[in-house]
């Protein structure tokens, strides 16, 4: 690979990696603070067997995603965006769309060096907006939030599907071949899952849908683009 931006590769990326590693490892430690406060300040020790039972149930659902989500979303989020997204959470429903929206608005291509810079800014802005709104929400409290009329609550539940549809269209329209591959692969995988054909897999097999949707599309998409490039060269 050619070195287009030596500052990016030689200075920026190493400093992002060392800072990201330290802050995310610190993040692992900080995550335990509330639980430790309950133990050492309030002397509340939940039965270990119950904690293990709860964790086993939870990990059987989400454990695979610890690996599948970072690897699947990395090509879009970039290095800094990946550290930040997985420290802050709410990936698919907030960080990923914010990253894509920022890259689209700045007119940079995802996966390029410029893309990863802009992605960082998009994710950072989404973190600030999210923390601000959550802070307001928690100050308002459950009573006020709970008195939101059901019509509005129902509408809020439909924000995410509309957002996902919009995001898909944004990619689908300029890349109809790759988009079609993604939709067909995903539909087949969901069909197989709903009809129990994936039940041989351990846990809740929706992770298999994501793996095939993302990596199947990447793999076939590469073949399509490589073939198109070869055709252009011949002409």
């Amino acid at each position: 690979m050619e070195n287009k931006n030596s500052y990016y590769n030689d200075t920026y990326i190493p400093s992002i990696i060392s800072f990201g590693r330290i802050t995310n490892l610190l993040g692992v430690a900080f995550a335990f603070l509330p639980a430790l406060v309950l133990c050492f300040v309030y002397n509340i020790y939940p039965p270990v067997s119950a904690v293990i039972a709860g964790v086993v149930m939870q990990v059987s659902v989400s454990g695979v995603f610890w690996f599948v989500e970072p690897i699947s979303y990395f090509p879009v989020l970039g290095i800094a965006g990946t550290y930040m997204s997985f420290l802050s959470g709410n990936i698919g429903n907030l960080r990923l769309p914010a990253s894509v929206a920022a890259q689209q608005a700045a007119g940079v291509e995802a996966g390029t060096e410029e893309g990863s810079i802009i992605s960082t800014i998009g994710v950072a802005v989404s973190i600030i907006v999210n923390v601000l709104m959550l802070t307001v929400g928690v100050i308002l409290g459950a009573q006020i939030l709970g008195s939101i009329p059901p019509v509005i609550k129902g509408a809020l539940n439909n924000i995410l599907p509309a957002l996902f549809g919009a995001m898909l269209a944004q990619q689908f329209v300029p890349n109809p071949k790759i988009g079609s591959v993604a939709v067909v692969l995903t539909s087949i995988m969901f069909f197989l899952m709903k009809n129990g054909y994936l039940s041989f897999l351990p846990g809740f097999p929706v992770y298999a849908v994501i793996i095939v949707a993302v990596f199947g599309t990447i793999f076939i998409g590469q073949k399509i683009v490589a073939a198109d490039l070869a055709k252009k060269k011949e002409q």
Partner: protein
Amino acid sequence: MNYSDIANSFIMWLACGCGVALVLFQAAVMTIKSMKAGKKMGITDEQINAAISSSAAGSIGPSLAILAGMVALLVSMGGPISWFRLSYIGAVAYELMAAGFAAQAMNVTLGGQDMNATAFACGVWVMTLGSIGWVLFTALATPHMDKFRDVLAGGRKELVPVVAVGAMCGAFSYLTINSAMRFNSQTTAAVAGFLIMAAFTKYNMTANKKWIREWSFCISMFLGMLVSVIF
């Protein structure tokens, strides 16, 4: 002491505040580093401003959806933990599930009359341990993902953006079909969001208007939602 007093105590706010502060601190430093690198790489202020406004506008909708989901969490786990878990590592669906599993393991109803301090603590532990893998894995493996992506591109630099397009198409078709499959108003929202954005994108492929690049995402999201409520 009532468990909700403990859950909403000052020291819990403090413990939770550390994590939220870390997220903000990391975001700030990463942004400064990225802006500096961006300047050297020829990214203009105009591009950065466009990225900021588009991401800010686009984050409001999903954050509202998170707030709506926060109610159930607030009632059962109190203010600090809800605030902490939704700005740090977690996500609404995950947290409710984890709290539910913990309550189940303790034989109580989440947020019910029989919920006590021990069950609350169990919930905090399960939320923490069940999600720690995401941060730990990204802390250690992120640099290697860069190389893995180059492998996916077959070592051809011009194909790296195709990896990103493939990943976006795959991820968003999974997320879209996952919610459209319910065949209710969410399906309408997903289809409407898709069609409105498709029209914007198609038009802008020739028109190349800046405001469309910046706002089409936000407009499609809210219009899609509106359509699903009206029909």
